């Protein structure tokens, strides 16, 4: 039976590069994916593109492609990535430039477009945001981006046309793997059983080493060998949709039923209805079998017809967040840190600083779980001799965020005894909301840019 080997070279935008090169060189791969987008990343990239039309793709793209391209060409490993972010065309231009500089003899780069639906935004004003139910029109002046999660269609088309590198914007993460599988195994776009299995393969790979021992270790309970040298995952997928996850011999990390199960359940909500643009995958009867050390098989995944609706991320400006911290130590640290927090709360009220929301945390006491749960976990935390006050405030205007920081800073002379280590930080908030748009609104297209050994024969379709 035909088998395809797909590696995962990144589970987030800034992931490590060496383990990716390692699997390209030694993993006997057919494809490598680099999954580099999170909910907010695309909106941040749109902001970059607004400032500079030649930017808006993954900030590590140049570094990453310079390192991996020679190995990919040498080993004939095709690359599928959403590193295009808000500007996949500019990303392709950059990859083209890198390939020329590296004297790569020939390379076909495909750009998948169609996820950016900002040009249609006016027709969505009456749609509710999934998170709050609020109508989109209430945010209208603040909206900066609208990107739909598109499926595998464009990737399949690109591969059919001989692409070596496929670069997308907001494609759904598992589509980066489903695409090559549909192409290689000629899975039909209505063969939901197989598409469900392909989505599982994508879901297992999309977070990189989170399936090979990353984000897993808990000393004494879940130990990970050589965790400083995690090997990145390789999936072997058969034509019937059977999946095996493994990693390179000699690398650190672990592939076990436990690491695979953690990744299977990760962020899927309803396991019987994992919604993607291509299929509603069903993981509810999945079996996980250890084949040998660091080799785990995944079986019994299926799928159902897709919803016909595309989740679309709306990025909008949502004011500013000021974050301020100061530390107190020794006996009475908790009381002094708490007093300092009360001082800031009072000062902001006296000064009439318009703060939308204020949060006061004591790091080491209640910053992660609020007072309610923190006290259940540890009733002695108030006796800590190392307490860090953190004040976070959201404001509409940047100058009001600055006023929070300014007043916090004055705790150095105006606050309780022994405070030190003040840190102040302000950031603009780009918030994300989601809407569902009809499938018919999406027009996926694929553009190509080709490098040939004779530079005079460069072909460019855009």
């Amino acid at each position, binding site marked *: 039976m035909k088998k395809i080997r797909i590696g995962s070279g990144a589970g987030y935008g800034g992931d490590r590069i060496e383990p990716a090169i390692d699997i390209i060189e030694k993993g006997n791969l057919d494809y490598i994916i680099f999954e580099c987008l999170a*909910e907010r990343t695309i909106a941040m990239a749109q902001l970059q593109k607004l400032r500079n039309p030649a930017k808006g793709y993954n900030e590590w793209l140049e570094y990453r492609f310079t390192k991996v391209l020679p190995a990919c060409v040498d080993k004939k490993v095709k690359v599928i990535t959403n590193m295009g972010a808000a500007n996949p065309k500019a990303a392709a231009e950059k990859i083209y430039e890198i390939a020329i500089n590296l004297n790569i003899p020939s390379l076909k780069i495909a750009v998948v477009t169609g996820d950016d639906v900002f040009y249609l935004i006016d027709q969505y004003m009456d749609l509710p945001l999934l998170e709050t139910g609020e109508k989109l029109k209430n945010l209208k002046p603040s909206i900066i981006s609208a990107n739909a999660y598109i499926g595998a269609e464009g990737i399949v088309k690109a591969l059919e046309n001989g692409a070596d590198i496929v670069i997308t914007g907001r494609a759904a993460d598992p589509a980066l793997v489903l695409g090559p599988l549909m192409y290689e195994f000629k899975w039909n776009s209505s063969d939901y059983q197989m598409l469900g299995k392909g989505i599982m393969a994508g879901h297992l790979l999309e977070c990189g080493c989170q399936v090979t021992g990353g984000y897993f270790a808990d000393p004494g309970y879940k130990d990970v060998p050589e965790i400083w040298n995690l090997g990145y995952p390789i999936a072997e997928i058969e034509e019937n949709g059977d999946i095996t996850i493994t990693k390179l011999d000699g690398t650190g990390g672990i592939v076990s039923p*436990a690491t695979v199960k953690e990744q299977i*359940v990760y962020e899927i909500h309803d396991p019987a209805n994992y919604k993607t643009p291509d299929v509603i995958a069903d993981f509810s009867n999945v079996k996980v079998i250890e084949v040998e050390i660091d080799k785990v098989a995944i079986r019994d995944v299926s799928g159902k017809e897709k919803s016909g609706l595309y989740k679309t991320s709306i990025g909008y400006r949502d004011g500013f967040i000021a974050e301020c911290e100061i530390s107190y130590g020794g006996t009475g640290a908790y009381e002094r840190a708490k007093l300092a927090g009360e001082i800031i709360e009072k000062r902001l009220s006296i000064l009439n600083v318009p703060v939308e929301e204020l*949060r006061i945390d004591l790091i080491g006491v209640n910053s992660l779980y609020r007072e*309610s*749960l923190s006290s259940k976990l540890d009733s002695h935390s108030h006796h800590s001799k190392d307490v860090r006050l953190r004040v976070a405030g959201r404001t509409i205007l940047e100058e009001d965020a600055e006023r929070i920081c300014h007043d916090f800073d004055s705790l150095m002379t105006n606050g309780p005894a022994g405070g030190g280590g003040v840190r102040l930080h302000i950031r603009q908030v780009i918030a*994300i909301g989601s809407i569902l748009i009809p499938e018919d609104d999406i027009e996926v297209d694929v553009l190509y840019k080709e490098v040939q050994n004779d530079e005079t024969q460069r072909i460019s379709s855009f």
Partner: protein
Amino acid sequence: MKLRELAHSRTGDKGNISNISLIAYDMKDYETIRKQVTSEKVKEWFSGIVHGEVIRYELPTIGALNFVMYNALSGGVTRSLSIDAHGKSLSSALLDMEIEVDYVPV
């Protein structure tokens, strides 16, 4: 004993929704966990943090539960004032919950 002795967990997020898995180390403990770690109990445990519904999904073939907790991330990752805006540390707190077993684990 603590749930941590019997199960492991990972947290994910989507918007203002937190998604926490709970996976038995040993399949024989799944039923014990399933019986005791109900959505009501999890909602009560996270009562100061999770302000919406808690739905529990079951994956018996891998001995796992999945808790989907609504209105759990102070408005969502992008605008939350929480130091851990993704709520990634919630899984560790879930594992600190007590569970009763009728045998002495090895």
